[in-house]
């Protein structure tokens, strides 16, 4: 016998009818890898694809992307070179696997075989989870390009990573530290460290006094000298953290007879745009070039920093409103040493030193010998780390990662481990690293892993060694 359906309580029925419908609140997307400011939450897929399409049509990238996205022998030579993969042995850290995150989308939407055959040819329809994967994956990569050195097909996974980051950047999916610092540089106080002009000028005076106290020499930091041969510009953070590097630089330039100046309207060579945005790259670069134009200099001399030098040298001809000859200051100083314009006494630097090749200076610009010329001239016990030059490992904070505190543990325990092993093996007391970002990462590594190694810049050695 069929059981009767229980009757609902009338009061309960009425109260249910009067109950307001619950608001459906959309859960905010979580970004566990690093903090993001104002990410685009809606329509991510069409924006991503539209941006990708515009990058593919972009004259700057068309050849490179067509080659890199079409060519990969899937041999995993890149994996054997990647410091990240060598540490984690995780599939997601295979450089080719990471590049395939973008390559698979390219095949699906921009190749006939991809549209027709889909997964059979490695093509994939873009999903929200793919974008989330890319956010972490493209920022785990430090863009060191060690993989590119060994690729038999000439593919550069770091460029694919950069393109991926630029596309994500259009969705505001970049680390908060990048976007806030760049905003401060472009719209705020005018530099990434928030140093106002008055404080900057005080710092220059302080550095001059320090040099006088240490060496007894009157060394000037010339300011706003119109028509000078060189405009010297370094990351503004050097004025807070790398006083020795700047003092050594000023001493070397004066002793070598350089006609140089610092610009006080714009004094920050940092350009985080290199890591995530062409627009920011262009805007920041043009601020630097405008200062050089204002002072009517002939050449630009970038401080020891790798990424700062690379941005100006690589992107000036594409984005720059003005064009200048560009040098890294180490190239100038090394030449001065070779030409005998600088007298150096290496005996004052007796401790064992070793040298870290920053990726942007070495693999990016071929600046391997100039720093070594200065270091070898200024010290008596130089030990090369192994491997070195184009095979040297990334500090672990590359691609701007050093500026993202959220990934500190990742940098200390994963991306920087290979470098720690290298430094330990040298037995050096001093680790010389010209790049500002590398220095920060390396100091944090030495402290985290309790290594008694001091991290200094190249020109730091000249403070004691330079003979006036």
């Amino acid at each position, binding site marked *: 016998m069929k059981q009767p359906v229980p009757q609902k309580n009338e009061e309960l029925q009425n109260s249910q009818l009067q109950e307001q419908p619950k608001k459906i609140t959309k859960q905010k997307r979580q970004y566990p890898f690093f903090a993001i400011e104002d990410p685009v939450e809606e329509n991510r897929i069409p924006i991503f694809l539209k941006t990708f399409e515009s990058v593919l049509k972009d004259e700057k990238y068309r050849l490179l992307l067509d080659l890199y996205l079409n060519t990969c022998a899937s041999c995993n030579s890149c994996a054997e070179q990647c410091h990240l993969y060598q540490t984690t042995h995780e599939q997601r850290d295979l450089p080719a696997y990471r590049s395939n995150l973008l390559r698979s989308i390219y095949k699906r939407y921009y190749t006939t075989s991809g549209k027709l055959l889909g997964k059979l040819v490695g093509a994939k329809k873009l999903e929200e989870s793919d974008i989330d994967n890319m956010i972490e994956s493209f920022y785990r990569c430090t863009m060191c390009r060690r993989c590119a050195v060994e690729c038999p097909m000439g593919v*550069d996974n770091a460029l694919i990573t950069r393109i991926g980051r630029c596309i994500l950047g259009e969705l505001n999916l970049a680390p908060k530290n990048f976007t806030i610092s760049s905003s401060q540089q472009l719209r705020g106080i005018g530099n990434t460290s928030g140093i106002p002009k008055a404080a900057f000028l005080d710092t220059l005076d302080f550095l001059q006094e320090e040099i006088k106290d240490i060496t007894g020499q009157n060394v000037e930091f010339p300011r706003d000298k119109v028509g000078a041969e060189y405009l010297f510009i370094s990351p503004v953070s050097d004025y807070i953290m790398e006083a020795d590097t700047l003092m050594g630089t000023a001493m070397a330039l004066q002793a070598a007879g350089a006609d140089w100046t610092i610009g006080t309207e714009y004094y920050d060579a940092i350009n985080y745009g290199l890591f995530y945005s062409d627009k920011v790259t262009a805007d920041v670069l043009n601020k630097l070039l405008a200062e050089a134009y204002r002072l009517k200099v002939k050449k630009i001399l970038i401080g020891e920093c790798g990424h700062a030098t690379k941005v100006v040298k690589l992107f000036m001809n594409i984005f720059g409103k003005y064009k200048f000859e560009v040098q890294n200051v180490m190239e100038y100083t090394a030449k001065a040493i070779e030409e005998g314009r600088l007298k150096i006494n290496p005996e004052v630097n007796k401790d064992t030193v070793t040298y870290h090749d920053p990726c942007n200076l070495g693999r990016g610009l071929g600046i391997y010998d100039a720093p070594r010329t200065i270091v070898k001239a200024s010290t008596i016990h130089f030990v090369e780390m192994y491997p070195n030059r184009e095979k040297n490992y990334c500090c672990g904070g590359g691609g701007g990662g050093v500026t993202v505190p959220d990934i500190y543990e990742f940098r200390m325990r994963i991306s920087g481990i290979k470098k720690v092993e290298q430094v330990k093996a040298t037995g050096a007391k001093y680790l010389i690293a010209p790049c500002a970002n590398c220095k920060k990462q390396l100091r944090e590594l030495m402290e985290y892993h309790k290594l008694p190694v001091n991290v200094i810049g190249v020109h730091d050695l000249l403070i004691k060694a330079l003979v006036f």
Partner: protein
Amino acid sequence: MNTISFLIELVLPYLAVIIFIISLVIRIKNWASMPHNLKWSLYPMPVTYKEQIKFMLKEILSFKSVFHNNRRLWIGGWIFHIGMALIVLWFLSFLIGLHTGIILRIGLLILFVLPIYILIVRIANKQMRAISSPIEYFNLSIFIIIAALGFSVIKNPFMHPDVVRQYFIGILLFHPVTFTASPSFLWLLAMVEFFLIYFPNSKMLHMVSKYFAFHKVNWESH
């Protein structure tokens, strides 16, 4: 001669070569003419032409990078490419009447065994599997099939080398000679014709694209 034999023996050879040449020219012209405003150089780079040739030859002849980084794959890949070179060498010597059957047999054996080996490496190794897609397995299978058909043709007593030689010379001189080809020969010819059409439109053109990746991108100085 039936329609299928006519197509495979007399029409497709020319069509396949024409499509091969046109596709190759289009892709090379496309890469050669594209602007490359972004200097994304990689140092150190060989500077002089002599240094560049030396670098490329070292890589092409020894697969140096893969040798250092993925020895298991290198064994398969390097010997496989030698197999392909042997087949080409055999074909040229065959056309001029040299008896180089041993080179053909070695080449076919390599073209049969090594793709199977590479397939196993790609499938059995977790990291290789992660970056491989079905099209890569398909590309290797083409060679296995061609090699198997090649062996079948060699073993067929009715496929006399002189008759086959006359056929190919006739094709090359635009004076095709018809003959009663065995089914295995027709299949082999069809597969080779498919390969010629497919090759320039596939990833296998990496031998050409790498030239541009190095010369136009990595070795472009500031």
